[in-house]
C-alpha cells in the first residue's frame, strides 16, 4: 500500500517526518505505550543496564581508538600516552576498562534472571538464543580488547586462548595460524584483533536490536512467569518502567564510578603493567575474572580436546536449554525443588570462578571437577528429569490477583 503513514503526532515537523518514516509512531508504540507486565522486580533492570554499559563502551572505545596505536612496538606506550597525556584519557580508559567488568556482571545477572524466572521457555526460545549469541559475541570482543594494551597478561592470555583451537584434530593448527596471522601472537595478531574489537561491538548492536525486536513480539516475561490476561495486568512502559530503569541506572552508575575512581585496577592483573615479552612467561597466566569459570572447566579434565569441548559446550548447552526444560511452569517461585538446584548451579558457577583463579592442584582439581559435573548435570540431567517429577505450587489466577490479592473484577 503506497501513500503516507497516518501520523498522530501534533508537532508539524515531526508529523511531516513521521508520515514518511514513522519512527515517532514506532518509538511511541515500542517504548511509550508498550504494554509491560505490572509486576517486574528490580531484576528486570539489567537489560537496560547492559544497554547503558554497551553505549558507554562504544563511546569511550571510539575515543580510545583515536589515540591508541595497534602496533606491537607502540601499543603499550600508547596506552600510557592515553593515561598521562591525553586530556581526561585516564578517565576514558578507566571507564572502558572497568566497563568490561560491569558489562559481564550485568549480563550474568541478566542471564540468571532469565534462568530463574524461566524466560527462555516458549514462546521466548529465539529471544533466549539471540541472548546466548550476544554473550558469545561479548566474550570474543572482551577477549580481543584485553589483548590491545599489549601487557604481559594480554600477550600470554592471547597465546593460551588462541592455542586452544589447536586441540581440534586436523584443522586445529590451521585455525591457530589464521587467528595469529603468523606463527606466534605478534604484530598481525594485534592488528587484526584491534580491527575485530572495533567491529564486533557494532555486530553486537545489530544482534541486540534483533533480541529486543523478538522481545517486543513475544512480550516480557515477569516474576510470576504467567502471561498477562488483559490490560489490568500491564502498564505502559513509559513512564512506569522508564523511571524504574532510571533508578537502577543511577545505582549501577555509582557502582561503576566507585571502581573507576577509587579502585580502577582492582579487577585487573599487575602483570599487565609490564609490557608484553615473548621471551618471559608470567608465573601464572589467568584470564580476566569474567572468564575464570570457563577457564576452570577447561582445566578440569586432563585431556586438552575434551577440556576445550567442555568449555565451549558449557556455553552452547544454553542454546538448547528451552528444549531441555520439560517443566511447563516458568518461574522458580512455583518450583520448590528446582529453585534450590538452580541456586546450586549458581554456586557451581561461582566455585568454578574461584577454581579458575587457582593453580589446578590439590583441592582445586576436585572442586573444579565437581562443579563442572554439576554445571552440566544441572542442564542435561536435572532440568529434563525434574521438569517431569516436580510438583509445582499452584499458579496464581492472574498477575493482578497475585500482586493486589484482589480477585479479578468482572472476568
Amino acid at each position, binding site marked *: 500500500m503506497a501513500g503516507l503513514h497516518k501520523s498522530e503526532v501534533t508537532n508539524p515537523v515531526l508529523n511531516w517526518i513521521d508520515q514518511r518514516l514513522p519512527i515517532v509512531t514506532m518509538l511511541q508504540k515500542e517504548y511509550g505505550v508498550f504494554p509491560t507486565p505490572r509486576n517486574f522486580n528490580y531484576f528486570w533492570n539489567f537489560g537496560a543496564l547492559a544497554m547503558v554499559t554497551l553505549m558507554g563502551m562504544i563511546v569511550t572505545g571510539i575515543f580510545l581508538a583515536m589515540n591508541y596505536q595497534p602496533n606491537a612496538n607502540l601499543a603499550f606506550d600508547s596506552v600510557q600516552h592515553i593515561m598521562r597525556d591525553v586530556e581526561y584519557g585516564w578517565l576514558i580508559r578507566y571507564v572502558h576498562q572497568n566497563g568490561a567488568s560491569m558489562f559481564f556482571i550485568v549480563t550474568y545477572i541478566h542471564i540468571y534472571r532469565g534462568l530463574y524466572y524461566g524466560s527462555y521457555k516458549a514462546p521466548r526460545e529465539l529471544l533466549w538464543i539471540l541472548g546466548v549469541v550476544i554473550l558469545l559475541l561479548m566474550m570474543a570482543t572482551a577477549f580481543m580488547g584485553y589483548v590491545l594494551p599489549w601487557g604481559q597478561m594480554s600477550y600470554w592470555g592471547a597465546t593460551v586462548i588462541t592455542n586452544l583451537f589447536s586441540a581440534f584434530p586436523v584443522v586445529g593448527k590451521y585455525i591457530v595460524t589464521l587467528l595469529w596471522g603468523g606463527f606466534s601472537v605478534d604484530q598481525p595478531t594485534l592488528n587484526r584483533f584491534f580491527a575485530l574489537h572495533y567491529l564486533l561491538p557494532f555486530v553486537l548492536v545489530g544482534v541486540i536490536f534483533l533480541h529486543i525486536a523478538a522481545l517486543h513480539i513475544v512480550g516480557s516475561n515477569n516474576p510470576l512467569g504467567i502471561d498477562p490476561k488483559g490490560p489490568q495486568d500491564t502498564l505502559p512502559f513509559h513512564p512506569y518502567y522508564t523511571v524504574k530503569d532510571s533508578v537502577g541506572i543511577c545505582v549501577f552508575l555509582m557502582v561503576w564510578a566507585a571502581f573507576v*575512581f577509587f579502585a580502577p585496577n582492582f579487577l585487573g592483573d599487575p*602483570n599487565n603493567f609490564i609490557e608484553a615479552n615473548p621471551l618471559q612467561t608470567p608465573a601464572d597466566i589467568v584470564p580476566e575474572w569474567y572468564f575464570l569459570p570457563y577457564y576452570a572447566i577447561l582445566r578440569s579434565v586432563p585431556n586438552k580436546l575434551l577440556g576445550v569441548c567442555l568449555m565451549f559446550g558449557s556455553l552452547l548447552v544454553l542454546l538448547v536449554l528451552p528444549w531441555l526444560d520439560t517443566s511447563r511452569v516458568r518461574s522458580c517461585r512455583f518450583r520448590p525443588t528446582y529453585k534450590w538446584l538452580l541456586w546450586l548451579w549458581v554456586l557451581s558457577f561461582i566455585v568454578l570462578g574461584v577454581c579458575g583463579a587457582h593453580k589446578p592442584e590439590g583441592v582445586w582439581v576436585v572442586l573444579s571437577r565437581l562443579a563442572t559435573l554439576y554445571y552440566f548435570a544441572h542442564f542435561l540431567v536435572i532440568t529434563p528429569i525434574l521438569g517431569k517429577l516436580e510438583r509445582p505450587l499452584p499458579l496464581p489466577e492472574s498477575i493482578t490477583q497475585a500482586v493486589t490479592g484482589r480477585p479479578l473484577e468482572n472476568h
Partner: protein
Amino acid sequence: MRAPRIFLAAIAAAGLFALPASVRAADDHAPAHAPIKIPEQKWSFDGIFGTPDLASAQRGFQVYSEVCSACHSMRQLHYRDLTGIGFTPEQVKAIASNFTVPQGTDDAGAPKEGPATPANMFRSPFPNDKAARAANNGALPPDLSLIVNAREGEANYIYGLLTGYAEPPAGFKMQAGMSYNKMFEGHQIAMPKPLNDGQIAYIDGTPTSVDQMARDVTTFLTWAANPEMAERKAMGVRVILFLGLLAGVTYAVKRKIWADVH
C-alpha cells in the same frame, strides 16, 4: 521429594570418582613456595581521599635521581610531569637542564645530545636492554614508571623490598653476586642493597634513614604510576555524591509515579 536425594547421591559418587585423580595431580607438582607476607604500611595515598604527600614525593624524586636512576629507567615520564608533585615550571626547567639527553640530529645528520627541557622524557641510564644486562651481571633492572602497579602488594611491596635486605639465614645457599631479600620471591635478588643510612643529603634536611628514603621513593613511584590519582579521587567523590543525589530524586519520582498502581 525423592529426586533431590538421587542427585545428591550422584554428586557424591562423582566426588569419589574425582578424588583419586586429583591426588595424583597434586603429587605431580612440587609444593608451592610458602607465600611471602607483605606487611601493610600506612600511606598518604590510602583510602578514597588519600593522595600522595607531595613533600615526600619530591624527596622520593631526589632518591630516584641520586640512587635508582643509575640503573632504572622511567621512560613513561617527561620532566614536565614533575609539576604533578608540586615543582614549579621554573624548578622543572632547572631540574631538566641537569640531564643530558639525545636531541635528534645535527645539521650533518650525526646524533646530537644536549641539556634536557621539560618536554623531554626522563633520561634512561642505558641505551637498550642488552646494554642494561651487560652492565648488571646479566640482570635487567626493570623500568620504574609503573612498577608500583606492576607488583602484587603495590606500594607495600616496593617499600618491603627496599627495606627487606638482610643476612641470609644459616644454611641458605646464595648464588654469586646475589643479595638476600626477605620480600623477594625466592629471596635472591640481583639488585644489591640500594639504600643505606645517610647515603644522600635531602634538600629539605630530613634525615636520610633507609626507612625514610624507602617511604619517600615509594610515594614518588606511586605518584609516577598513577599521576592522575589526586584528580581522579577528587572527581570520584563529586561524581558519587552527584549520582547519589540523582538516585534519590529518581527514586522519589518513581515512588510518586507508581503511587497509583499499588
